């Protein structure tokens, strides 16, 4: 499909456009964050602690009197970066493993995919918890943990794409013309696996953001005073009785970002890869 066509089709898909707007909006907030945040996200103001939403503090203040709006704005930078890095960590090895397993088949396939199956047998969040426990709780390790957990998903998707590609005539043609394996993989197979990868990576951004926030919520992710959304929620849990806004706004932000990626990813899937529907 031509690029123009894809774009035109995406534009017709209203829900995916809503998703795109959500994503672009939050990315814009992340980019210009320092200019629009009304306060410093780390400066405490003990006199004005736990205040509800008002004109001075639109999202209220937290237990140390820090402005929640500013913290949510700065948090968007953290969450988006976590998502990007975590997805790259799972996408690159996942794609390579999937290509190898699908292309070479037999023993290579068996050994790679069984390993992937073992990783898939555990609930994602538990595996991520184990990995962060080994590496130690901080922001970087959160990204690594979330990234590693989703490697098998990409490997599977790429593998199944490769398996169906291998049977196709043009690959057979390259083979009979004497193209080397490397040439075949790099020039002919990889480019054709990109559409499903894009779809999955978009949906994966949402999942990664969610998982990272969950780790933050459990106290295994970003450590205070970093304005990470999950960690902010975990703090808000203590004040849920008198100051529900402390938890409400960071959670709403996570929801918006993840919803954006899911809506957009669903739309992309409909356009790019109808077979996955």
């Amino acid at each position, binding site marked *: 499909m031509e690029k123009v066509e894809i774009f035109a089709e995406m534009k017709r898909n209203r829900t995916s456009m809503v998703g795109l707007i959500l994503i672009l909006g939050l990315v814009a907030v992340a980019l210009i964050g320092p200019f629009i945040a009304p306060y410093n996200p780390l400066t405490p103001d003990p006199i004005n602690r736990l205040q509800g939403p008002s004109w001075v503090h639109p999202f209220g203040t937290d237990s140390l009197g820090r402005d929640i709006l500013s913290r949510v704005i700065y948090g968007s930078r953290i969450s988006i970066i976590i998502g990007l890095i975590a997805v790259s960590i799972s996408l690159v090895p996942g794609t390579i493993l999937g290509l190898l397993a699908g292309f070479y088949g037999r023993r290579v396939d068996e050994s790679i995919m069984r390993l992937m199956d073992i990783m898939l*047998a*555990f*609930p*994602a*969040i*538990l595996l991520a*918890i*184990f990995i962060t*426990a*080994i590496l*130690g709780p901080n922001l970087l390790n959160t990204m690594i943990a979330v990234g590693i957990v989703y490697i098998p998903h990409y490997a599977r998707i790429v593998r199944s794409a490769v398996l169906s590609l291998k049977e196709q005539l043009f690959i057979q043609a390259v083979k009979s013309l004497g193209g080397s394996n490397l040439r075949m993989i790099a020039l002919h197979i990889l480019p054709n696996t990109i559409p499903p990868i894009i779809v999955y990576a978009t949906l994966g951004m*949402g999942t990664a953001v*969610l998982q990272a*926030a*969950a780790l933050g*919520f*459990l106290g*295994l992710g970003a450590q205070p005073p970093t304005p990470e959304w*999950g960690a902010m*929620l975990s703090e*808000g*849990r203590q004040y*849920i*009785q008198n100051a*529900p806004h402390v*938890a*409400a706004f*960071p*959670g*709403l932000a*996570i*929801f918006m970002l*993840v*919803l954006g*990626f*899911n*809506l957009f990813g*669903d739309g992309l899937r409909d356009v790019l890869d109808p077979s996955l*529907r």
Partner: protein
Amino acid sequence: MLRLIPGDPAHLLLGEFASPQEVARIRDKLGLDGSYPYQYYIYLRSLLKGDMGVSIRSGVPVFQEISVRFLATVELSIAAMMISSFIGIIAGVISSVRRYSVFDYSSMVVALAGISMPIFWLGLMLMYFFSVKLGVLPMMGRFTMGLEHHPLTGFVTLDSLLKGDFRLFGNSLKHLILPSFTLATIPMAIIARMTRSSMLEVMSKDYIRTARAKGLSDRNVIFRHALKNAFLPIITVIGLNFGLLLGGAVLTETIFSWPGLGRYVVDSLLARDYPAVQGCILLFAVIMVMVNLLVDIVYFYIDPRLRVDGKS
């Protein structure tokens, strides 16, 4: 692999100012000084005897600690599974029958929102509205302090019902509503979507047209003919979701202070309580295998074609 986790349990147990002799004594007692393969051998050997070791933190046998918490988690998960399957399947069926209707559209939007929502946030918000604002549901725990529970099956709701203690039953049921609903959101959304697409596929088949042509009522066609055939992928999804439930349980239990396995494994990890963590991992693995087996058995039950294939 667990031993890669930095930090020495003996140090954590004794605090910062322990003397080296004391540390050595504790390490010896916990069997931490042998080589890793040897430690593993010892662990496997005692495991065969049904001994999962002793929790480093509390000194109580791991099996004892885990079994109580495990039942709490299972109670929560089963409740969540029932809620999610029931609402999910019904919503999915209605959506597929009234395709492109307002109900279809809105339920699918809600389902997508359900997948995108951080359940720990949803849990907190539910807690705020129902416990703090309205005060109709309790905030945390399995039942109110002061009520007595003598374990029979370990499921508080079931135990109290069996013993005819309706006060405890009502109380524990109320405690169960918020956590199980929170835990149910994501599976519910997934089941609803799966049911819808699976039903849509089945509804376009010839035998459905035949059934309609015979003049069967709509209800009959939908439930006896379509839903029965659409069940296979739905059951698969429900089974696969069990893993999701176990994972979600970690978060839900943290929010509602539910004394289950999920929170226990996180706390054990943070305390480097190796035997406890090993026990939990083993249990999780066993559960996943059992659930997959169960799903396979259910397949045979609902799809006679598989039975024939199995015999030949």
